[in-house]
């Protein structure tokens, strides 16, 4: 049972008030019609499953109904930070950086 800081209510609340909504920072392609099947499939279906830091979306469903981001350690279940939609994480892991570089190549 997590204790989650809602960045909109600015309070910790019990996990029961929230729903998890999967990996964060996946932008919908600007022009879906120009995506190849593979690109679209990647957007739609492929998700990280890291051992360690994971940025994910949660919604304060029984509360302010706002979506926000959570940086969570999938091993210890520690929540490192929560931040509003449109903001970037302050806590990132080495592996995240590497993955970004790989993606860029």
């Amino acid at each position, binding site marked *: 049972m997590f204790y989650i800081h809602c960045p*909109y*209510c*600015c*309070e910790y*609340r*019990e996990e*029961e*008030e929230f729903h998890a909504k999967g990996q964060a920072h996946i932008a919908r392609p600007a022009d879906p019609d120009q995506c190849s099947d593979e690109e679209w499939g990647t957007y739609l279906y492929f998700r990280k499953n890291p051992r360690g830091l994971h940025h994910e979306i949660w919604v304060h469903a*029984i*509360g*302010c*109904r*706002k979506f926000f981001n959570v940086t969570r350690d999938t091993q210890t279940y520690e929540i490192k930070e929560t931040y509003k939609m449109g903001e970037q994480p302050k806590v990132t892991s080495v592996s995240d950086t590497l993955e970004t570089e790989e993606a860029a190549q």
Partner: protein
Amino acid sequence: MSDVIDIDAIGEGQVAVMDQLPSGEIPAESPLHHLDSTVPTFTSKPAGVRLWEEALKGHLVLRGNAEDPTFQRGVEAALGMALPERLRSVQQGPLSLRWIAPDEWLLVCPGDQAAALEIRLRRHLSGHFAVVNVSGGQTLIHLAGPDAAMVLKKSCPYDLHEHNFPIGKVVTTVLAKTQATLCKIAADQWELVVRRSFADYAWRWLVDASAEYGLIGDTPATAAQRRASTGRHPVSSET
């Protein structure tokens, strides 16, 4: 009814504003109007808990940008009170305004004033905002008494300690397997906003949780409020 409210003038065709109260003497039934027959509302012990419905109030959801000074001023002009701070409630005469979310508030008013207040708000607000009448969709349950906090501890995961939950605070949270917006209105008294369709469940849950403390579940006066003729009072043109 169109002789009183000119919908086109208020919504300018952009939104449909509607006075939803009948003009004749027609009985309204609150979400808990059926309780007398189906749920025991008294227990024998001295009452550690009192529970009653504040039925048939007007409920308006107000949406807008809290950061926008025009919106702030508009609300204040319409209601005579400023928007409450985060997780807070403000009161002005018979009106209360509860913070629900950064862009959402709940205005509770006497049952016959919902339409008039919606019109007032719309007259004073501009730009991106919304007002929604939800008077039929929810109701207020009051929970009071020395053991009221214990009943809530059995029902809600939120920390009710006075340091964390002072008078005037508003919190939407889990209530058993439904949800409620709690507002602490006195040292031993909470007001719960519950959705109509869940009201029966919430009430039964609270009655059950109160049993060990002794419960007064109703007074004839509060019970009578649940089924009342609430014919519309004409909206004065000044509103």
